[in-house]
């Protein structure tokens, strides 16, 4: 069984003339096959730091992270990252952008394009294969980023606020698309967002993080994406009493954290 394990991870670093920053304190988290884990929290709670640790861009000060029993020591193709923006290469068209990871891994052109086309199809980008990325809308650009991340067949997708820069309508459609891609590919997902509604709707598990020091303060198991696959009606789920009650509860936690930040 594939799994990502984060054990007793802490991150702290010195800052000149100030007390040391405790970005993360004693994080423990396991992500299993078919988990869609969403991280939510006030700014400064360390959720991006946690993603950077899993991606291997940063080393923890204490503790360790392992993927399928192998300790993470740096970036690798088994952990693909989808960024909020600026991650596509404007000098390549959509097809070459999607195939970029495969090119790095040394696959020949025919194989690259075959695999890339599979994911272009999965993300509904067939018409835009030859387009320049800067001519696409923000939503389409994110689809390219997701298709690219999937090409290396990662065990886990790390999504760092992938929908944060989209308008509200595009964002809701993209949420549903990502859920379908997750269901069809069976990848583990670690997803960061600032939107409580998005977090509740998409995750199978929600971790709420609190700042100073960054830590996981609450964990919720979520039923809503499962409901969505049954009914196919996203708005109805987001408007249900159960959804709204949980949304308000979590907003209260986050607002309390934010207020704490301003009192200091």
């Amino acid at each position, binding site marked *: 069984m594939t799994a990502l394990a984060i054990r007793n991870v802490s991150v702290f670093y010195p800052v000149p003339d100030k007390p040391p920053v405790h970005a993360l304190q004693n994080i423990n988290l396991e992500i299993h096959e078919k988990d869609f884990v969403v991280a939510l929290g006030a700014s400064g709670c360390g959720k991006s730091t946690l993603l950077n640790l899993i991606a291997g861009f940063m080393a923890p000060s204490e503790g360790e992270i392992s993927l399928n029993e192998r300790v993470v020591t740096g970036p690798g193709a088994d952990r693909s990252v989808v960024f909020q923006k*600026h991650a596509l290469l404007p*000098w390549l068209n959509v097809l070459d952008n999607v195939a970029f990871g495969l090119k*790095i891994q040394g696959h020949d052109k025919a194989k690259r394009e075959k695999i890339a086309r599979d994911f272009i199809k999965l993300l509904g980008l067939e018409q835009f294969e030859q387009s320049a990325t800067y001519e696409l809308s923000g939503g389409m650009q994110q689809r390219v980023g997701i298709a690219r991340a999937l090409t290396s067949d990662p065990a886990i997708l790390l999504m760092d606020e992938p929908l944060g820069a989209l308008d509200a309508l595009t964002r809701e459609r993209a949420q549903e698309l990502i859920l379908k891609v997750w269901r069809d590919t069976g990848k583990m997902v670690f997803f960061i967002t600032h939107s409580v509604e998005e977090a509740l709707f998409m995750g199978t598990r929600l971790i709420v993080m609190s700042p100073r020091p960054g830590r996981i303060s609450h964990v919720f198991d979520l039923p809503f994406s499962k409901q969505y696959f049954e009914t196919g009606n996203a708005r109805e789920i987001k408007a249900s009493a159960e959804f709204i009650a949980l949304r308000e509860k979590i907003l209260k936690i986050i607002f309390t954290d934010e207020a704490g930040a301003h009192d200091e």
Partner: protein
Amino acid sequence: MSDTRSTGGKGFLGGFMKAKPAKPGEIYGVPGQGESLKISAVVIASLIFVWWLVTYAGFVKPLFLPSPMGVIDAFLGILKDGFTGASFWEHVWVSTLRVFGAFLLACVIGIPLGIAMGMSPFARGVFDPPIEFYRPIPPLAYLPLMIIWFGIDELSKVLLIFLSVLAPMALGARAGVKSAAIEQIHAAYSFGATRWQVIRLVVLPSAMPEIFTAMRVGIGFGWTTLVAAEMVAATSGLGYMVLSASRFLQTPIVIMGIVVIAAIAYAFDHLVRFVERRVVPWKGRG
């Protein structure tokens, strides 16, 4: 009388100090918005007209400023008979070869050097002091050294021009390294890219717009240095032509040489801009 308008500055200068509301389809307040081509055409035509007027009316002696026709005559004369034993095209060819040879050499060495300086603190530590040391020195100042070290033949001429182009090329490429977004670099690394792959597939393409700008600046320095390079022991070249004509007070030839150098540099600048539009159409839009 009171002003009933709701916006606009006070008094006569108010209209100049505030931007006019945009026409539909334009964006309000974009700096430098609008067409400038017609204004430039009028200015060029007026300058030539004033030039013609002051020489025609005899305000200035032809020795100091020959008439436009005098310059054209000089041009046609040299085109027909050549200048000091070499044809006009030979002078153009020799200078172009010197400048472009030096320019290509500066690209081949300066771009990798700049990328290395942008990527590695070690390379930056090694090359930053020498480049920053010689960069502000006028080429004329170290011309004697170049001649003492590298002789009076082509080598010292090309090296002098090369040095003047090298610094802007290296600095442009070095600044261009910063153009790659950290997300692009992280994406490449998370696919298992090596440092070399990141440089080749992400950093270098991202730096291309800056490198093109550096090429335009660099070739400008190259032409600027040409005259200095052709001061000593040259028998042909546009810089040589201008300098030797000035010694014999052949002002029409001096002005003609200046115009020819400007025309070649201007044409090349447009060529670079054309290539730039083809190679980096995404400039400013990525």
